């Protein structure tokens, strides 16, 4: 076991991916000498060369479009989009080409392309640097959408994404990049949870709290606070947003009878809305209360001096938990 930041855990995971498959490539803006603006690719170009760790021109559609071509040639590109709000120039290539080409080819083509996107707020950034666009991708058939919450799973999940034969959109919680935890960098992937499985992070009995990415730590803290109040929260780190591990979600809600979904993204049309619909349909007779969502308000991301009001935090999560006991 080694103590690593989430950023360094991703870096070690990417290193493993490059070592284990000579066809794996890293491409993006400033991923080479600089090591990425969050240092996630630090030192990789030095060790694997400019042909495998590619500083691309500054154009996101080009990054994804050429990654598709490289994948068609047998490569496994791992692309970095520098910030969440800058993925949109590439949105067309992701949605109309990357997600649909296998279907278009009747399964003759496979596109093992990973798209890493630092996402979420809480870092006092200017506009376009704090967004949570994951639902737009989860809504698109043909993509796998995942998000890591802590350094240990960042290390394994990025390797699993790189090894996956499908396109994977990989959301990294940017405000957790410097969180530290123990990571088993010697262990292989065999013992790791599959990429599309949720993880019961904190077992509990009274209410299920579902979360992913930056909200995983916040929800774990909420569970501790609630236990002091005599409430037992089961925290589930979803990890995979498309597909959803509904088996784990339903099993928990059938047990607790209460469900709160937490994410930084706006609640309208979000992952929480999808989960609420599915839980209502499948666990209707087990529910003691409606499924509640805790997320950002349905406004554009506000100036950063307001973000503490805009983003879900421990108190808003506990408030929602309390409300589920009011029915």
């Amino acid at each position, binding site marked *: 076991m080694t103590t690593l930041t989430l950023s360094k855990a991703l870096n070690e995971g990417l290193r493993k991916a490059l070592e284990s498959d000579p066809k794996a*490539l890293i491409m993006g803006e400033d991923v080479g000498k600089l090591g990425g603006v969050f240092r996630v690719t630090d030192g990789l170009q030095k060790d694997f060369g400019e*042909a495998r760790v590619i500083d*691309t*021109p500054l*154009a996101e*559609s*080009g990054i*994804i*479009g*050429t*990654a*598709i*071509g*490289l*994948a*068609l*040639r*047998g*490569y496994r590109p791992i692309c970095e989009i520098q910030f969440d709000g800058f993925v949109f*120039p590439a949105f*067309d*290539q992701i949605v*109309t*080409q990357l997600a*649909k*080409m*296998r*279907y*278009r*080819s*009747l*399964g*003759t*083509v*496979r596109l093992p392309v990973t798209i890493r996107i630092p996402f979420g707020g809480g870092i006092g950034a200017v506009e376009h640097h704090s967004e949570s666009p994951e639902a737009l991708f989860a809504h698109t*058939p*043909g993509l*796998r959408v995942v998000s890591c919450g802590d350094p240990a799973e960042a290390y394994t999940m990025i390797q699993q994404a790189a090894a996956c*034969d*499908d396109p994977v959109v990989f959301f990294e919680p940017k405000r957790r990049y410097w969180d530290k935890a123990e990571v088993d960098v010697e262990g292989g992937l065999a013992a790791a949870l599959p990429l*599309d499985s949720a993880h019961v992070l904190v077992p509990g009995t009274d209410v299920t709290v579902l979360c992913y990415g930056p909200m995983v730590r916040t929800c774990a803290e909420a569970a501790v606070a609630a236990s002091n109040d005599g409430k037992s929260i089961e925290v589930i780190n979803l990890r995979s947003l*498309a*597909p*959803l591990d*509904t*088996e784990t979600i339903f099993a928990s809600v059938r047990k607790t009878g209460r469900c709160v979904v937490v994410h930084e993204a706006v609640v309208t049309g979000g992952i929480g809305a999808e989960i609420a619909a599915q839980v209502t349909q499948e666990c209707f007779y087990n529910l003691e209360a409606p499924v509640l969502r805790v997320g950002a308000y349905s406004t554009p991301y506000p100036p950063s001096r307001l973000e503490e009001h805009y983003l879900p935090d421990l108190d808003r999560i506990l408030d929602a938990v309390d409300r589920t006991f009011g029915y």
Partner: protein
Amino acid sequence: MAVKDAGRAARSANRAAAREPERQADSAELIQLLTPEGERVEHPDYPLEISADEVKALYRDLVIVRRIDFEAIALQRQGELGIWASLLGQEAAQVGSGRALGPRDMAFPTYREHGVAWCRGLDPMKLLELFRGVSHGGWDPSEHNFHLYTIVIGSQTLHATGYAMGIQRDGAVGEDGEAVIAYFGDGATSQGDVNESFIWASVANAPIVFFCQNNQWAISEPLERQSRTPLYQRARGFGFPGVRVDGNDVLACLAVTRKALQAARDGQGPTLIEAFTYRMGAHTTTDDPTRYRLSAELEAWKLKDPIERVKQYLIRTEQAEMSFFDEVDAEAAAVGSRVRASCQQMPDPAPESMFDDILTSETPQLAAERAEFAAYLDSFIAEEAAR
């Protein structure tokens, strides 16, 4: 009044500037090896030694692809196809460039490259499947080194560039190297993706040929809505050569594309080829070009027909007997009959197949939806049986 006059003058100046690309077409910059009258001319940069059999083979390609196109339009009119994008007028650009490709070169088409598809050996029925609504393409791009048709304008130029970057990483550049050709039209040159692909290919020195069929019209919008400068001249700004070729001259398209592909294989990087041609038909069968263009323009381009000039050349130089032309016509008619019959007999895909091939393994959600759909369909059978 003065304001109005000034406005008029400005508008007139704009029009003059906008006509620039067309005017350029008649200049010496247009590479031509076979005139519209069927006269063979030489170009110092593009010497072409070609046998009578090779020219006859090109003629055969041209006639057959036009026939396939003709049948497809008729099939659409009869309700057998949902839509068809005709290549009429662009046969030489497609056959010339398509026959310049080596077997290991990779082609990335738009949705109008039926002539290139023919040259690559793709069964024309695969194209009809797409336009009938039976599949979205559904062929294996690696089988004929011919990628799937791409409908979003210009997207494929980036895929082609990435593929060419893969060739570089495979060490497949050099005398015996591989190259990529990316097809697109004049309208696509306004797309960001096409411009990004020029930048990427240039910076990477990728082994790629950008083949732009400038057919003068992007649905209803003439070239002057896309560009103030001749398209081939844009290449210079991106840092690689651009040439304009008579797109209705199959020999020139062959020679120019061959040279550009060899330069790419040799590690000399990208070339932009602007094949100056004309879309003789509608954009697709849903379009009505009489609403936006003059028939006089069409008549002028009829005189530059890509097939007729090859026929005249073969006759004039006595490289072909009249019986040859009859044989080609008969073969084209046979291909046409087969296309027609196969299309009419083409079954719809099984309804459940819409759930296939989305990811490499089926997600639980999708498996549940598939089962739900199957049960729903079965419920009709059960209902029918109960009656």
